[in-house]
């Protein structure tokens, strides 16, 4: 048996065990994305990283235990690194949460992103309405695609459009994706602006957000059309 210290709590595990086994036995947890016992232990996603006493960050799923090793699962540095890694994954992720069958609480990636405070996930990620039931398809100006997630989307759950009370997303790429949606379903821009002014009237980036959306719509609309 080998004794290691997880967050200063001593715990004993078998000789060939990895840090992850010790962490679980000690009653703590670390997030994992790629780890799948017996099948995949390649430490590719780097989410399970923990901090050793010498400051080095190592992946818990693949690093072997050794006598007296001290590991810390939740330091500020570890949390910061995990957040940035989540941001990287989401940046390269073609996130169309509006139509993902796993949305509304069944996506580990989005759950982790919320837990670690990653910005830029729209309410659409939590909205239970299917793509075909989306309120935008009925021409209703819903602010879901440009509002910060975290409320579990109670309004669209009841069939009323999102009014943006949690605050806007200011990331350009997310706004541009949303603008394409608004264009697709012919949402009236003035209506949208009126809705945005309900809760975002004094937000310093209100006009920036509106302009980004307007630009994308303008760019993708043929010359001489109505809007």
């Amino acid at each position, binding site marked *: 048996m080998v004794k290691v210290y997880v967050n200063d709590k001593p715990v004993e595990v078998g000789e060939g065990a990895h840090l992850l086994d010790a962490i679980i036995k000690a009653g703590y947890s670390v997030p994992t994305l790629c780890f799948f016992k017996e099948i995949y232990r390649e430490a590719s996603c780097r989410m399970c990283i923990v901090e050793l006493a010498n400051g080095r960050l190592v992946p818990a799923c693949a690093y072997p235990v050794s006598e007296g090793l001290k590991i810390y699962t939740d330091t500020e540095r570890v949390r910061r690194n995990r957040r940035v890694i989540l941001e990287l*994954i989401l940046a390269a992720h073609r996130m169309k949460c509006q139509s993902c069958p796993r949305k509304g609480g069944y996506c580990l990636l989005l759950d982790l992103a919320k837990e670690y405070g990653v910005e830029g996930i729209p309410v659409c990620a939590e909205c239970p309405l299917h793509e075909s039931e989306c309120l935008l398809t009925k021409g209703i100006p819903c602010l879901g695609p440009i509002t910060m997630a975290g409320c579990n989307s109670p309004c669209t759950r009841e069939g009323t459009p999102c009014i943006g009370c949690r605050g806007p997303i200011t990331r350009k790429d997310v706004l541009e994706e949303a603008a394409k949606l608004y264009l697709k379903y012919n949402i009236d821009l003035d209506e949208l602006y009126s809705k945005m002014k309900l809760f975002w009237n004094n937000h310093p980036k209100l006009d920036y957000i509106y302009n980004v959306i307007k630009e994308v719509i303008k760019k993708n609309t043929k010359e001489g059309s109505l809007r």
Partner: protein
Amino acid sequence: MTWSLMDKCCDRCWHSPEYPCRHYIRCRLNGPLCHEDPECRKKRENRLREIMYGKYGFKIKVPMASCTIAAGAREVYDAVIKEVKSRGIRVDVRKTGCMGMCYIDPWIELVKEGMPAAIYANVKPEDIPKIIKEYLEGDVSGAFALRYRTGKAKGEDKVPLLEELEPWKNQVRWVSRNCGIVDPESIEEYIALGGYRGLDRALNMKPEEVIEEIRKSGLRGRGGAGFPTWLKWKIAREQPGDVKYIIMNADEGDPGAFMNRLLAESDPHRVLEGMIIAAYAIGASKGFIFVRAEKPLMAERLAKAVEQARKYGLLGENILGRGFSFDVEVILSAGAFVCGEETALIAAIEGRTSPRQRPPYPATRGLWGKPTIINNVETLAHVATIMAEGWEKFVKYGTEKTKGTKMFCVTGSVKRTGAYEVPVGTTIEKLVMEIAGGPPEGRKVKAVQIGGPSGGCIPASLLSTPIDYETLQKAGAIMGSGGIVVIDDHSCMVDVAKFFTSFTVAESCGKCFPCRIGMKILYDTLEKITNGEGTEEDIEILEELGDVIRSSSLCALGGTAPNPVLSTLRYFKDEYLAHVRDKRCPAKVCTRLVEYWINPEKCTGCGTCAKNCPANAITGEPGKKYVIDPSKCIRCGRCYITCPVGAVEKR
């Protein structure tokens, strides 16, 4: 057929790979050992003299290594052959390797018994007749340098000795002693200059004693990590099991680094010798030389050396009758930079596609799960030399923490680009300014990039830093394999960081998120900044992202990839700020941030600039001065390039 030192001197000699003689190596030079015979002794002496001065007492050496060939050595070689044939000169024309003084390529050396060995620099095929004629007339006044003087040649005193010149005089040519002197494709010449003595000595010791010798020498891995070689060997040796592997890492991937290529092309037997010694020390029975396919001459020369060693029983079963069997296979890599990393290299041999989390380290579980030692080419060259010369000589050079010498390739803005070997602890200033001659006229050193794409930029203010593993790390760079790029005031540090980052982005294996996605975003952000669209927030992103990639990547490629960005941010933050705040590139390199202006005093009114401007931003009439409208200018730089009188200036 000329008798070779490697052959039997007479019938009493019975050595063959099947029935090896223990004293074979020593016997080549000091023999015969098993019988007394002045004839046999004379045979050896004559042969040695032939090797030194050529068959007819006259030898012309033409260095044929990748760099000299690129500079035109093949044409020079052909010209030499043509000249000696047409004039019927009795001379031995031999290939050698490269000396490391790239700025005089192609060069040739003429050696005649009684004459000083003369080196002629920057030789063109048409110079050959004159050079040979003068030398044969006893005149060396046209030479670049002499290896030694004899007092019998004309103009001898006027020509400097090589050892008096920079870059030679401050070097310590410990492992590179044979480079440019010996024919790399001749095992005989290597042995004539004392080769394989190290192996002979090692095989007379126990493997543990070999490890002890290397421990006393303090040799640290020269591939970049600087791990104590003896310790790695000891760990592998102590692993249970009979099957162990040794791998020579000849996958030198840093752009601009060619120390390993130089050693392997110019003195391949030295590195092979080191590999056999290492195999003996750890108990490996099979070895692999993993060499870049993009360096074909290196691969060819190493393969040839292996073949020759096998022919004379230095590889194979029961080497030199010591009961030690070892053989080597040469494997060509597919060219991925990441294969320089241990676990990636092993994966490449095994046919897998990506590096692995360590621990377990290859010394305990490596190739096919067996204990594996991976040593760099230069490290193995040191091993051979230390075993031959003794550890006491090695520790004379170096610092407290790191003994011995290291090879460095100095490129970039210097007068004398080349590969130089100096004691560890030499300051950057000495290497760059004295040995390599400093920047050309009118330029100033701004920074020195050490360690390639995994290394960092050290500003000119820190040039007095001694080159050692720990000191460089503290300054934000790494020793790496020894590539040094000198950056002058005409370069933009942000652009430099962008260049190195683009390299690592292309070379990322893609297995882990931080490196695969993070490095790309780092690159995109740098591009944004050099295009004039950057914000101060982007600089914060670079710092945070760089730190995350460095601390959470799976292997050392990702772990060191952000170094160029982070080190330039550390020392040259003002340049970054100028790019984002003032939208200006202080070094006038980033095309979108440079203002173009026609100097009216130089402008001749030819209108070439206006004709070439894609934005119609230049106005004027033929014969009158032309003017650029900055509001229309898209900063493409066409006017700058096309102006025949250089009247367009950047500011």
